[in-house]
């Protein structure tokens, strides 16, 4: 019987969805059980893809960041203390992966095309977003996407990224001011 089957039996179908299940899977993965970790990946992969898709527009890139997130999680699993749900910890790992790559990638001269059919439906809005984000410093653009894209508050961003509230507040203020300036320039 495979480890996954054992975990499924041990947790039960109903309980599998419960957050307690994550704790059991984390404990097994810490002991080197990669099938338990595989179950964690399956549980959280959609969330990770959704978050990474906020910052990167190509399927290949989103997948790369998602893989990097889970590999980092595997390496750092011993640092996870079950005081908060596993998904919160994983969100932070994912955001840090996105942030690192976003900062590097922002300066690159990359094509604007999305290769996903479900990408932002209005091409004008897409170009507008690209233009605005391209004019901002990477850190500010990152915060702005979390504020407007994810709809998180300053406090939520600070908590999930592990930054200080003051830091996020300053960046949010700067990004909004720059956004205002860009829009005023467009209108004049």
């Amino acid at each position, binding site marked *: 019987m495979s480890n996954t089957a054992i975990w499924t039996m041990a947790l039960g179908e109903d309980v599998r969805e419960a957050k307690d299940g994550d704790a059991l899977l984390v404990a097994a993965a*810490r002991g080197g059980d*990669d099938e338990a970790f595989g179950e964690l990946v399956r549980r959280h992969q959609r969330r990770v893809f959704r978050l990474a898709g906020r910052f990167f527009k190509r399927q290949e890139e989103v997948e790369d960041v998602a893989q990097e997130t889970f590999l980092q999680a595997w390496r750092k699993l011993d640092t996870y203390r079950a005081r908060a749900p596993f998904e919160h910890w994983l969100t932070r790992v994912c955001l840090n992966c996105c942030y690192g790559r976003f900062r590097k990638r922002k300066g690159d001269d990359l094509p604007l095309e999305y290769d996903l059919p*479900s990408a932002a439906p209005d091409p004008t809005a897409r170009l507008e977003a690209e233009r605005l984000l391209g004019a901002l410093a990477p850190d500010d653009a990152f915060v702005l*996407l979390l504020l407007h894209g994810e709809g998180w508050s300053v406090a939520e961003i600070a908590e999930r990224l592990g930054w200080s509230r003051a830091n996020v507040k300053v960046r949010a203020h700067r990004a909004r001011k720059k956004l*205002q300036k860009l829009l005023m320039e467009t209108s004049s």
Partner: protein
Amino acid sequence: MNCKRVRLLLSQEPAQNRGELDRHLDRCRACGAFAERLERAREALRDHHAGAEPDSAFSARVIARLPRRSPTVGWAALRLLPITTALLLVLSAWVWLGTKPPSEMVASGPTDDLVGWVLQGASE
């Protein structure tokens, strides 16, 4: 409230002094246009998403890339660290105190065997 102040307040979230802002926007077309552009920009940022989804083999690809992990007992082991250290210290002290100093380890005199061996060696 002047246009500069109105645009600054509009850019903040949530916009403050909403009633006063609305009154200004009703009579100032330029600020009204700015408010519309701002709203469109926010929508564009909200929609800025790749919409990517993991395929069914994604987890298998991740598992294939995992480096081997030596089984660990994790935080439980760390919690036992003070006890382990204390035990080691007690054991070390016991060994240290239980060992005679070198001065006490000197033999009181050569044994007959040793004397015989030395004499035999000397005669050869």
